[in-house]
């Protein structure tokens, strides 16, 4: 997992091609650690992820639950297949905001990331 800060926003980039039961737990526990450390603004760069299943979705949902409404998780650079998974589960409707690039996601945070 690559991590970098832009302003107050933590950008997380899973580097494996798959986000499934083998590694989604790592993302879930990393969210908990980062939120406990005081982070509240996240962009998840999914550009490397070619395959995701419901355990990957659950890790992202768990991040939202950990934040408990006090913070944001935006998603960026989804592959066509992963984007369709969000459509199938309707998590692109009022749950996650999805952007074409990390830069667009940071811009949408309204300057909070810079």
């Amino acid at each position, binding site marked *: 997992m690559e991590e970098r800060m832009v302003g107050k926003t933590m950008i997380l980039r899973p580097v494996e091609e*798959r986000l*499934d*039961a*083998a590694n989604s737990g790592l993302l879930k526990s990393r969210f908990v650690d980062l939120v406990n450390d005081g982070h509240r603004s996240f962009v998840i760069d999914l550009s490397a992820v070619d*395959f995701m*299943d*419901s*355990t990957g*979705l*659950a890790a992202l*949902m*768990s991040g*939202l*639950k950990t934040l408990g409404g006090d913070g944001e998780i935006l998603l960026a650079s989804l592959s066509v*297949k992963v984007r*369709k*998974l969000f459509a*199938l*589960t*309707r*998590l692109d409707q*009022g*749950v996650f905001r999805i952007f074409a690039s990390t830069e667009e996601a940071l811009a949408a945070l309204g300057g909070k990331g810079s």
Partner: protein
Amino acid sequence: MHSISLSIPSRAEAVRWACLAIRGLLQGVQLNDDEKYHVELAVSEAATNSMRHAYDGDPDQEIGLQVSIDPERLIVEVSDTGRSLDPCLLKCACLPPEAGVREDTGGRGLYLIREVMDDVRAERVDGRNVLRMTKNHKGLK
């Protein structure tokens, strides 16, 4: 109908290997990229359900996969010897209501399987729980 069988340990990395094997087999049938993803997704969900729910996360159990291909259909059977799936869970699998969606972090696997495959049946065969998932295709390559 040609069949290939796999037997894997009930571990997440083995489920991943099995999915990659399925991805290879899918090269032999006429499905578009979305449909291939759907089959791989269904296998990942079904095997993960066996691992997590039928076996309660015990990593030393066995999950079976059988892929059968004929000129019109691809059938994947994922089986285990753990706790049986409640047939109602498969029949009633749906997304959480909009109001509770942010609170509900799991439980989308069966919904996805039903959504992306053409036919899904849960059966008990010779002491094994078998989830039989069918995808129609446009022919063999």
